[in-house]
Every structure is written in structure tokens, then in C-alpha cells.
């Protein structure tokens, strides 16, 4: 049974290989191959899951050792897998949602001549992501970690002819690399500390060394997590990543890849438990991002960017939870899963809307779409209710638990975190309601289709004639079905997990679990949560539901404008890093040319000049030559005599 684990990764990898090397002859069947292999991987996952349930809770970890990857004196990097409950959760999420989105893409990318390639990339992503979660050591995890980075790079930049897309892709990869630096340094630290970087030995030995070391490792891991999970200060790439095709945003930049950071931290729980300072840092990052994302989400008019902001903030929740230690890990993962459902659903919905609206992404140019695309409306609506944590739906259970845990983390920290999470819930409710209203309610604010040459983005799907008014329509079956499935998930998953703490118990062997004991009783917290979210909804309704919405966004307050620009974070990067970098490189190029090279050419020039001057002595007059001879002899004699004298 263990040996199936490799198959998880192998199937989509095979798909990627076939599709990317296969050439044009596969164009017609490519998407089927891709989807089939994704599904196959899912099936394997389910089989393994079944098997896993078969064992008793403590002995569920399965291992598979393939071969020694980098065998060097004192350094053993193996290709070996470990599938425990935590990994299994991810495997199911990844393959499940992944398969759905494959199906969705069949319809969505129908008219793109490079569809085969697209599916190849998607499979590549699945393979890398699965490798990431089933790896049994940090080095292999790093392999998957960079692999998903590559996949996301390829998919964000899938429409490479769009400069914006290409730039976004590059940005994503490079920002991630900064995070990866953290991961690789963490691995080096582990190597020098423990002499290995396999999960088992490392996580068992955490106690045996100084807390400082642990803190260092923890912070490095956090840096990595920030990069991958778009947490402050490395969050800037996620918004731009929306340049990618919408399924990509759904799969990679909502449901799965961006949550890798949460996985990393949860997986390394033992390390963080041994390093309180690192935990504090984690929590702080989570809290800040949570608000940051939410605020950004409020200001965006681009539907995908708004959702991206929300993703950021939701992951903030997870990171925060993970930072709380054993009381939080389980909830972090649970929220991660539910979020996977509803956020994917929301994105697919958004994609469907754009599909119907000539790829218009500006919500201010939507409105009143509910009767034109009912399925999309319903599924999107359910996802909406889920994410704002409407009682009874998935988001409610998972998020509420996190808020409780936040309060329970004790002392001032507890109160602060509690309030922050509550506040976050409110804002979430606000901006999601805004999205909902702008898109599906109110009067039509549709605009004639833009001239494709002028606009950067022309998503495929329907050929767009400039100046033509959009005629919204429901999307094809291949697209709606996945949305429906995900909607189911968004509605019931949370409840299903929470009944009898199923989920927590399931993960408990891996992540441990302490029951949170918040200072105020749980019902009160729940009440507060509900109250806050209702408030958020109400405000949004008052702002956008009552009075007509201007098609062109009002200038808005400073905060709004700042928020539209991701709270000026990009501008900061641009000025400090990009500009600074450019100046640095330019000046270095200058230095290299004038100084370093100059020294060399300088010496050559000096010799030449010296030569030119000495040459003048050779003036062609025999008498001068005689003089030099005479003088030479004189010196010769004088020297010899002096030699003797001294």
C-alpha cells in the first residue's frame, strides 16, 4: 500500500511530461489526458485514505523510500515519502479541487490554442504540490516548494504576450525566491544543528538544542511561509498573480499553493513549540496580513483582485492560528480546507462571470447579473455566505474556532488577537457583501466591450468584437458542475468536520491538540462574531445596495486610494528595491568598466607611456649612444669600487 504514494506524484508528473513534450499532435486530446491523470491521482489518494482509515489512529503514518537523492559524505538527501493524516488532508484537497478545476478548465480554455500546454502546467503543479506535502524531509519539500513556484510562474505568465502577465509571473517567482532563501537557510541550520533534515529526526530532537537555534530556524521557516503564502511583507505578488487564467487563480492562488506556508508551519510545529519568540512572530505576521488583506479587499474594483485580497486575509487567519501552537494547528488546517472549497468556488464563479461579460473584471461594470447566470449566482452566493462565516456554513465553523483560539492564547496577546480576528471577520463580511452586490444586484452598468488591442487582457472563451455590448449567459456544463460541487463543499464541509471534532481528532496524532480555554465563554464569542459580520453586511448594503454605484470609481479617501494600491506596499518596493537595485547595478556596471577593468587597461597604458618616453632616448645620434656607454661604464666602475668600499 505504501508504494502507492509515489504514484500520487507520478501520475500528474507523467501527464506534464507527455503534454509538454508531446507536441501539437496531442492538441486535441491533451486536456483529457491531463484531467484523467489528475483524477487518477485523486483516486489513488482516496484509496490511500481508505487504507489509512484502516489503521488505528497512532499508526497511520505511511512511508516509502525510493532512493538516495544526494548521497555525499555526512549529507543524506533522500527521495522518500511520508504520508500521515496532515499530508493526507492536503493530498485529498489538492487532488480533489485540482481535478475539479481541470474539468472546469476544459470549458474555460476551450478556445485557447495552447490549451494542451495549459493542462501540462496544471499537471506539473499538481505533481510538485503533492511532492511538497508527501515529502519526508525538508530538502525534498524544498524541491516541491520550488516546483510549485515554477508552476505558478508558468501559469501566471500563461498569456506571455501580455507584458503585464509576464511581469507578474516574474515578480511572483522572485518574491517567492526571497522566501525560499529562508527555507534553504533553515535547512542549512537544521543540517548544522541536527546533522540531518528529515522530518522525523529533526522534529524529535528539537528539545536537545538551544532555543536560540530553534528561534532562528523558526523565523527562517516563517520567511519561507510568508513568501509562498503571500503574507506581509512578501504579499505583494499575489494581487498581480491574478493576471493568470482564472482557474489558476482558483487552484493555485486560492485553494492550494498559497496555503503551503500554513502546511510548512504546521508540519514544523515541534520547532515552533520549542521557540515561543518565533511563534509570536508568526502570530504577528498572521494578524497583520489578516487586516491588510481585508482592507485591500475592500478597495479593489477588480473582482479577482478583491478575492485575492480576501485570500490573503483568510490565510492570515490560518497563519495566525498555526502560530498559536497546539491549540491552533488543527483549526488552521480545517480553515484551510474549508477555505479551499469556498474560495475556489468563488474564483470559479468570478471566472464564469467574466466569461459572460467579455472578460470584464471591473465590478463597477457588472450589476444585476443574478437573473442572467443563475447557477453562478447561487454557487457564488453560497461561497459568499461561507466565507463571511454565516452560521451553519463551513466558514463559520472553521473561522469561529480560530477566533476562539485567538482569545484563548492568553493574556494581552489573547485579547489583541481576539479583537483583530473579530475585526477581520467584520471587514470580510463587508467587502464580500460589496462584491456580491456590485456583481449580482443593482442595475446593469455594462459597458461595450473594449478594444482588445488597447486593453492588456483578452481572456479566451468567446471572441470579442469591439464595441459590442456583453450579453451575459450561463457558462457551459463543464464549468458549472465543478462550481456546484465546490458549493456543496462550502456549505457542508465545516459542519461535517466539526461534528464530534472529527477533524481535530483526525489530525491530533500529528499536530497534537490542546483544547482552547478562552477567557470569555464560547457562545459569547460566537455571538460577537455573528454580530460583527452582520454589521459588516449592513454597512456594505447601505453603501452599495441603496444608492446607485458610479461606473468610474470615486477618488475616495486617502485610505481608499492607498488600499487600491495595496496600501502603497508596491510603491515602496518599487522605490526602494527596484529603483535602488537599478541604481546599484548601473553604478556597478560603471565601476566594473572603469575601475576594475580600468586598473588593467591602466597598467597597459602606463607601460605604453613609459615605453614611449624611454624610446625617446634612442635619438639616432651615435654620440648619445656613446655617452650612455661611457656613463654605464662609469657607473659600473663606481659600483664595483663602492661595493668594495662598503
Amino acid at each position, binding site marked *: 500500500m505504501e508504494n502507492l504514494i509515489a504514484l500520487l506524484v507520478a501520475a500528474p508528473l507523467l501527464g506534464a511530461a507527455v503534454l509538454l513534450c508531446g507536441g501539437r499532435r496531442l492538441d486535441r486530446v491533451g486536456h483529457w489526458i491531463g484531467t484523467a491523470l489528475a483524477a487518477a491521482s485523486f483516486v489513488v489518494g482516496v484509496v490511500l485514505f481508505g487504507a489509512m482509515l484502516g489503521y488505528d489512529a497512532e499508526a497511520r503514518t505511511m512511508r516509502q523510500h525510493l532512493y538516495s537523492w544526494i548521497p555525499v559524505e555526512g549529507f543524506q538527501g533522500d527521495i522518500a515519502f511520508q504520508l500521515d493524516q496532515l499530508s493526507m488532508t492536503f493530498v485529498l484537497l489538492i487532488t480533489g479541487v485540482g481535478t475539479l478545476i481541470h474539468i472546469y478548465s476544459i470549458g474555460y480554455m476551450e478556445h485557447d490554442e495552447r490549451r494542451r500546454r495549459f493542462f501540462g502546467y496544471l499537471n506539473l503543479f499538481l505533481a510538485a504540490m503533492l511532492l511538497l506535502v508527501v515529502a519526508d524531509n525538508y530538502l525534498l519539500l524544498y524541491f516541491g516548494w520550488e516546483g510549485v513556484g515554477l508552476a505558478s510562474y508558468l501559469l501566471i505568465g500563461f498569456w506571455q504576450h501580455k507584458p503585464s502577465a509576464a511581469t507578474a509571473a516574474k515578480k511572483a517567482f522572485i518574491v517567492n525566491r526571497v522566501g525560499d532563501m529562508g527555507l534553504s537557510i533553515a535547512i542549512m541550520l537544521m543540517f548544522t544543528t541536527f546533522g540531518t533534515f528529515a522530518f522525523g529526526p529533526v522534529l524529535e530532537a528539537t528539545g536537545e538544542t538551544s532555543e536560540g537555534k530553534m528561534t532562528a530556524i523558526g523565523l527562517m521557516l516563517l520567511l519561507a511561509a510568508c513568501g509562498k503564502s503571500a503574507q506581509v511583507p512578501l504579499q505583494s505578488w499575489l494581487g498581480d498573480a491574478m493576471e493568470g487564467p482564472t482557474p489558476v487563480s482558483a487552484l493555485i492562488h486560492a485553494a492550494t499553493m498559497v496555503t503551503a506556508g500554513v502546511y510548512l508551519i504546521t508540519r514544523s510545529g515541534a520547532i515552533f513549540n520549542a521557540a515561543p519568540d518565533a511563534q509570536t512572530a508568526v502570530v504577528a505576521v498572521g494578524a497583520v496580513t489578516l487586516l491588510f488583506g481585508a482592507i485591500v479587499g475592500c478597495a479593489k474594483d477588480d473582482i479577482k483582485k478583491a478575492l485575492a485580497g480576501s485570500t490573503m486575509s483568510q490565510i492570515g487567519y490560518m497563519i495566525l492560528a498555526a502560530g498559536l501552537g497546539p491549540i491552533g494547528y488543527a483549526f488552521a488546517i480545517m480553515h484551510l480546507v474549508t477555505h479551499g472549497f469556498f474560495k475556489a468556488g468563488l474564483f470559479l464563479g468570478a471566472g464564469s462571470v467574466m466569461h459572460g461579460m467579455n472578460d470584464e473584471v471591473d465590478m463597477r461594470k457588472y450589476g444585476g447579473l443574478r437573473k442572467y447566470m443563475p447557477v453562478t449566482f447561487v454557487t457564488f452566493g453560497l461561497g459568499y455566505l461561507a466565507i463571511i462565516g454565516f452560521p451553519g456554513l463551513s466558514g463559520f465553523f472553521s473561522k469561529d474556532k480560530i477566533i476562539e483560539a485567538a482569545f484563548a492564547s492568553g493574556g494581552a496577546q489573547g485579547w489583541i488577537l481576539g479583537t483583530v480576528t473579530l475585526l477581520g471577520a467584520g471587514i470580510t463580511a463587508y467587502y464580500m457583501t460589496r462584491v456580491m452586490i456590485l456583481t449580482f444586484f443593482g442595475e446593469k452598468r455594462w459597458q461595450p466591450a473594449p478594444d482588445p488591442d488597447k486593453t492588456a487582457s483578452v481572456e479566451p472563451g468567446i471572441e470579442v468584437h469591439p464595441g459590442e455590448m456583453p450579453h451575459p449567459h450561463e457558462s457551459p456544463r463543464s464549468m458549472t458542475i465543478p462550481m456546484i460541487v465546490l458549493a456543496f463543499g462550502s456549505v457542508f464541509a465545516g459542519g461535517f468536520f466539526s461534528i464530534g471534532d472529527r477533524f481535530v481528532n483526525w489530525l491530533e496524532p500529528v499536530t497534537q491538540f490542546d483544547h482552547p480555554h478562552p477567557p470569555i465563554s464560547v457562545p459569547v464569542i460566537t455571538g460577537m462574531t455573528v454580530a460583527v459580520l452582520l454589521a459588516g453586511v449592513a454597512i456594505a448594503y447601505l453603501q452599495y445596495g441603496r444608492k446607485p454605484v458610479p461606473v468610474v470609481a470615486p477618488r475616495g479617501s486617502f485610505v481608499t486610494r492607498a488600499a487600491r494600491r495595496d496600501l502603497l506596499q508596491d510603491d515602496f518596493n518599487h522605490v526602494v528595491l527596484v529603483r535602488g537595485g537599478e541604481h546599484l547595478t548601473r553604478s556597478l556596471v560603471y565601476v566594473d568598466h572603469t575601475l576594475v577593468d580600468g586598473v588593467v587597461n591602466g597598467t597597459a597604458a602606463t607601460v605604453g607611456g613609459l615605453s614611449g618616453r624611454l624610446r*625617446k632616448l634612442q635619438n*639616432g*645620434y651615435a*654620440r648619445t649612444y*656613446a655617452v650612455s656607454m661611457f656613463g654605464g661604464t662609469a657607473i659600473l666602475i663606481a659600483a664595483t669600487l663602492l661595493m668594495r668600499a662598503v
Partner: protein
Amino acid sequence: MNPVNYLYLAALLFTIGAAGVLIRRNAIVVFMCVELMLNACNLAFVAFSRMHGNLDGQIIAFFTMVVAAAEVVVGLAIIVSLFRTRHSASVDDASLMKL
């Protein structure tokens, strides 16, 4: 009379000859100065020969004269041919090649 004085004379002649080589422009004169130097050498040889009381020095002097004669032959040949082409025997005029 102390033979050392002959040495001083020799050195003097030699120096005069050398100075002449360095100063004079006319090839012939320069060449004569060289001859003067050779003769200074001869004088030195003879003087030393006397001091040491063996004949080597004197014999060498004869050799030197022969060599000097040979030099004259060759030298004059060259200088004359030079003069015939350039109509000047100045060593400074002959400075096509330099630097």
C-alpha cells in the same frame, strides 16, 4: 722615474680620447679619438710590462697596433663610402634610424 706616472698619462690620454668620441661630430675625428684611446692602452701595457718585468705587455702592444691598423682600414672604408653618398662625414647627419 716612477712608471706609475706613465699610467696616469695613459689614463689621461684615454679620457681625452673618450671625451673626443663623445663630443666631436666628424666621423674621422671621432675615429681618431678612438685610435688615441687604443694608444693610451698601448702606453699602459708597456708601462705595466716594465713594472712587472715581463714582455707580455710589450708584445700585446704590437698586437694592438696591428688591430688598430685593421680597424683603420675597415673604418675608413665605411666612413668614406658614407661620405660619398651623403657628402658629409658628420655622425649626427647619419641619424635616419632612431626611436
